[in-house]
């Protein structure tokens, strides 16, 4: 339960230092992270009309195509993700289950016409990873307090929230970890 496998999907996310992400997650969560370079085929999740990947299908692939039977599986991809009814999602996770996936596609400053920033990208990547992992540990979106589990529909929402959990969310985590 305390193991987290970081799995790059489709391609290595550009400019993202996976080692830095691994250490970042381990600072926030009492877990041990490993980076798994597993060649996973996610092309069946590609929707050619939308030119995006269906995140729910990727979650299913993660479970089916890996032989990792324990711990959380955290997919990271440079490709844009969607669920059918929404224009995009930053990420998706199975609540109280093993799998989560998130995309760095909309975390780059360049996506918004701004100058590249490695530092900002690294921080957004960490927050999204921790947020989706929080869902896998049973946490819902947190309201009313600064917390990494605050809902984000804009990239600015991600920038505004802290990379860590508020006290009630952390208390919940400690009870399950």
């Amino acid at each position, binding site marked *: 339960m305390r193991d987290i496998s970081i799995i790059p999907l489709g391609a290595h996310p550009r400019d993202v230092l996976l080692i830095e992400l691994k250490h970042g997650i381990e600072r926030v969560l009492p877990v041990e992270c490993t980076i798994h370079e597993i060649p996973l085929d996610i092309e069946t999740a590609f929707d050619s009309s939308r030119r995006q990947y269906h995140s729910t299908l990727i979650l299913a692939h993660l479970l089916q195509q890996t032989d990792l039977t324990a711990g959380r599986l955290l997919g990271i991809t440079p490709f844009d993700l969607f669920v*059918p*009814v929404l224009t995009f999602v930053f990420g998706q996770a199975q609540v109280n289950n093993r799998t989560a996936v998130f995309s760095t596609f909309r975390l780059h400053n360049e996506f918004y016409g701004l100058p590249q920033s490695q530092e900002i990208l690294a921080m957004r990547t960490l927050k999204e990873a921790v947020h989706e992992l929080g869902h896998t540990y049973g946490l819902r979106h947190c309201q009313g307090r600064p917390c990494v589990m605050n809902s984000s529909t804009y990239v600015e929402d991600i920038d505004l929230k802290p990379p860590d959990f508020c006290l009630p969310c952390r208390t919940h985590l400690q009870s399950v970890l």
Partner: protein
Amino acid sequence: MSAFNPSEITIMIVDDEPSVRESLAAWFEDDGYVILTAQNAAEALQHMQNHTVDIILLDIKMPGMDGLALQDRIREFNTEVIIIIITAFATVDTAVRALKAGAFDYTTKPVDPDELSHLVRNAVEKIRLQRENRALRDSIDQLQFVDDIIGESAEMQKVLEMVRNVAPTDSSALILGESGTGKELIARAIHMNSRRRYFPLIPVNCGAIPESLLESELFGHEKGAFTGAQYRRKGKFEMSQGGTIFLDEIGTLSLKSQVDLLRVLEDREFHRIGGERTVKVDFRLICATNVNLEDEVKAGRFREDLYYRINVFTITIPPLRERRPDIPLLARYFVERHATAMTKVEPEISTEAMDVLLTHDWPGNVRELENALERAVVINKGDVIKPEDLPVQVGRETAGPRSSSLAEVEKDHIRHMLSDNNWNISRTAEQLGIDRVTLYNKIEKYGLKRPA
């Protein structure tokens, strides 16, 4: 909704595409909402029977009954549920039809996550306001002022019966009664038992407002209407929009003010002072007075046409001395109320003290009785109120020669109260239930002098 709990909101997703149902369900479950899903109209209607649904996210194109038909069907039995249409096949025609039929909002698939969050947040805010509104109405409905008015005597029961009869009508009412008999309480009871109870009751004490200010007070004024009018101000008639205006001491109105009042009663519209725009108002009128208006009409001090307009339904509240059986009930009520407010143990009223209360004439009526008992609770040291705890003049007056007119009774009473309070004007005014200016006026009127 500053501190709403999403788990108190149930969202139903109605869409024939499983992937849409699942992704929307997952999205809103992450926010903590309670989620129901339905793949067609029949399933949605089934959920509506078994659950309290707050928000419906509804697809238009579905096999069988489509979303718009389902919306019409739902609206036949539920007008409160919030329906948000989410469709892949958007046309202006369907959007207009959906919104005309009562949809809260309309959006197209795929929807931007931020837009979806906004739509649902707005819907939740509306639900919060609906719930708050319902709670406030319920709390108003529980205030049955008629039942709260104390009085088992036949005279008082007759008054309450009249209140119950007149309240549901929209007729003007005139409440007659001596000072302190509870005219405002009766006005409040009429208002609270009328269809206007969710709107304001605006009391105006015509006798307490100087003639020069009354017009502005009643009709409001525009900015710059006169020196000192720095802002536009609503008048009492405008404030009573939808509700009731209660004009106390109507008999003190000058003939000029009576003309103004008559006009607004006839036309239900007026101009603010300095204003050109006509302000329309919907209000119910309740007036009260302790003077004999018929005599005032005969003397030419009160307009006959105004008298007939306000005197549609008259309720006369008997003075306390004419309903002595109510005194023990009222006395115990006031003792309990003031002891609770002062966090004191509720004292008993001794038989001797009750005899004094029963034999006193109470020229100041229920207000005087309340003041006497409040004072008794304050100074009472033990657990029984004795005659000596009552104000000096209570009981003494009945022993001596009785004053012949109401004015003399009032003069005597004010003199006794001033003497009891060592001529402390504020305290005496408070105990008499009048303001300091009125007390000063009465001191001057009766030529009362502080003992050297």
